[in-house]
């Protein structure tokens, strides 16, 4: 973004994304659904495992939320709050597919775009400009396009920077038309009356601002001298000060999802506590395979291999890593080190979650050969395995050990982010 022309940054947020995709995917509900009337939706919730009452609500439609259903609520509680709640099992792959297409639409509508999450992204355009003479109209046009194509509602905040756009977006919830624009000269007037809790990104620091500084509104925060904020929050003090003055120097990074990885890490929560070393090893190897496959896909290799265990009751555990003399992305070279870490640091308690990570990455533009192993052959071997998996699925080729009762890979292959794909 150049300095001499002003840019308007937009923040777009899909309403109850998973639930919306489910409603839009069923013609019975999709036809009744209207853009400006939330109550045309069924009371629907996407829940962990509808068969188990302990499943957790991942997303709920506005109608369900109005009846008292909230995300992260247990299914049992949700049904108590809203007996006619419609529950559906998550379809993560569908949500990701739709998300990619929505993001594509945003990217094509404006000159700059930056993904933020499955259901949020930023965009930006110059102001004033002949292409977008009316910023609110341009944002509404995008919102209607998304509705027309996907039957998904979204809201959009427009402001001079990313943080303010995010804040403006919150106000859009209560605004008909779903778009709010804070022009530069109105930012402070809009921002300062808002309560401190509304400041995005503060987490627990909001409590400190209220208790220690007696702030009620963001305007109160803006009046605190920056030095006092720095004393209380360190470098964060500076950031809070800037935000309270409606300033956010962070730029747009269209390639943010394409920057090289710093490390690869996979973790799984086990269905029960594992107490046998042999069972834990099966899972460690499965996670290592996944981590190595991701590294190979990215054309990278790592020198440091780490193992994390979380003990029963999800309390306690450890994370330990070991640096090897040379980088690799082949599991057979890393597994013995993971076993050594396991044997050295595991105290024998039941294990409920396992994680494996590979970092200190280098580009795989050279291949250190070995005296004992035929490295080029092993490299071709793994390339073939990767190709088979890419074409026929993760479980098309797998280790025999994954067929043991302890194996998790067959379950995991049907899930994304721990939920049903």
């Amino acid at each position, binding site marked *: 973004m150049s300095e001499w022309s002003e840019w308007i940054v937009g923040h777009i947020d899909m309403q109850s994304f998973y639930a919306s995709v489910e409603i839009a995917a069923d013609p019975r509900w999709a036809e009744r659904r209207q853009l400006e009337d939330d109550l045309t939706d069924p009371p629907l919730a996407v829940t962990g495992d509808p068969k188990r009452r302990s499943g957790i609500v991942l997303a709920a439609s506005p109608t369900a939320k109005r009846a008292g259903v909230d995300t992260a609520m247990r299914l049992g509680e949700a049904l108590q709050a809203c007996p006619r709640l419609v529950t559906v099992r998550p379809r993560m792959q569908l949500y990701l597919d739709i998300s990619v297409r929505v993001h594509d639409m945003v990217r094509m509508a404006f000159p700059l775009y930056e993904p933020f999450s499955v259901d949020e992204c930023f965009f930006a355009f110059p102001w004033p400009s002949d292409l977008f003479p009316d910023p609110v109209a341009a944002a509404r046009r995008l919102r209607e396009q998304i509705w027309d194509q996907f039957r998904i509602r979204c809201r959009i905040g427009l402001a001079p920077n990313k943080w303010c756009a995010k804040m403006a977006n919150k106000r859009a919830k209560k605004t008909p038309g779903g778009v709010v624009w804070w022009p530069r000269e109105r930012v402070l007037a809009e921002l300062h009356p808002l309560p401190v809790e509304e400041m995005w990104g503060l987490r627990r620091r909001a409590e400190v601002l209220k208790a220690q500084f007696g702030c009620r509104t963001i305007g109160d925060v803006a009046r605190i001298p920056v030095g006092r904020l720095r004393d209380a929050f360190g470098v964060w003090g500076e950031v809070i000060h800037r935000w309270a003055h409606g300033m956010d120097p962070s730029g747009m990074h269209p390639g943010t999802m394409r920057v090289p990885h710093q490390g690869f890490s996979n973790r799984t929560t086990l269905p029960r506590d594992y107490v046998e070393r042999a069972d834990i090893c099966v899972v460690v190897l499965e996670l290592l395979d996944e981590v190595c496959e991701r590294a190979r896909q990215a054309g990278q290799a790592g020198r440091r291999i780490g193992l994390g265990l979380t003990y029963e009751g999800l309390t306690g555990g450890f994370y330990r890593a070991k640096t090897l*003399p040379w980088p690799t992305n082949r599991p057979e070279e890393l597994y*013995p080190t993971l076993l*050594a870490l396991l044997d050295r640091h595991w105290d024998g308690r039941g294990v409920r979650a396992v994680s494996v990570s590979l970092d200190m990455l280098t580009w795989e533009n*050279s*291949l250190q*050969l070995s*005296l*004992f192993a035929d490295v080029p052959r092993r490299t071709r071997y793994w390339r073939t395995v990767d190709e088979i998996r890419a074409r026929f699925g993760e479980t098309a080729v797998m280790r025999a050990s994954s067929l043991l009762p302890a194996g998790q890979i067959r379950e995991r292959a049907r899930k994304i982010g721990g939920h049903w794909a």
Partner: protein
Amino acid sequence: MQFTIRQNTLLNTIQTVSKAVAVRTTKQVLTGILLQATEKELTATAYDLDLGIQDTVPANEETGLRIAQPGQIVLPARLLTDLVRKLPSSEIQVTVHTNYVTEIRAGSAQFHIHGIDAAEFPTLPVLHAPETLQISAPLLKDIIHTTGFAISTVEARPILTGVHVECKNQALTFTATDGLRLATRTVRLEIPEEFAWNVVIPGKSLNELAKILPDDEQVVVVQFTDTHCLFQSGSTLFYTRLIEGTYPDTKRIIPKTYQTEVAVVLDDMLGAIDRASLIARERENHMVRMEVHDDVINVSSSSPELGHVLESVGVVEKTGEDLFIAFNARYVMDALRASSAAEVLFRFNGANQPFTIVTRGDESAALQLISPVLVR
């Protein structure tokens, strides 16, 4: 126990054995040094259960050792070393009182140190090997120097953290490898022909041994059992545990033939690779390229961040084909630094096969084998 001793004598002996003091342990007694005085001599011992070093000082004019009352005590190694180094006078008197409280007195300084019962100190393994081997200290030191660096530091394959020591047909061979490079050295010995040994000694132990071996032409007596090995040099005994398991068969990976052989001046090549490695940092896996073209070797390296380096090294002699190969600079520098030869031979079998470095004129003595890096 009570004795007096010259400061530098005591300092020397505790510094010699301190290499075997346990660093990370829950057993406090292993962090100490055992001092034992008999009528005629003082013995210092440190033993971390892998490595044990014992040094003996005779009572005489030269050492200044006079034993008033025999006895034994374990004293904390770190404190003892620092304390002895800083004492103001050259004569030290050590007296053990009740409850293992040990008085150390020199000049007007007087320490009272809490010792540990010597009965708690583990006993060193007893070796009754039927045969012993004798080797000169500087030679043993040199063999360790040319091989010991190539051990693996990854504990996942414990056998490779050791040096393979094989003695047969009147030849003693040390071999070490971490899987990417290998160093081996053979020496002829005047020993009975039927004499045969095959053991794996922890590389860390050997590297410590090299540090305490004398530089003069002393003889080191070596003994082996199935589990331990003892090196005796003068008044110093050096015990080490052996690594169990079978060492990989390294003979089959050492190439017998070669397609390209170049002779170079060692210092020229080492300097060129050392300079190229300034550009080949960690992120590039220390990768240096070498191009053998006619009578010149071009050594080069490049990094997207730092830049590029190119240097030509003259060839003393060359046979065979031209070649382009890449390798980890550290491995080749380690190999070259292990050699004291003026000229070495590089023997290649193409860009994707391991290459060897041997001394020119003494090709069968020591061999360094290095896996190259394939450039994509």
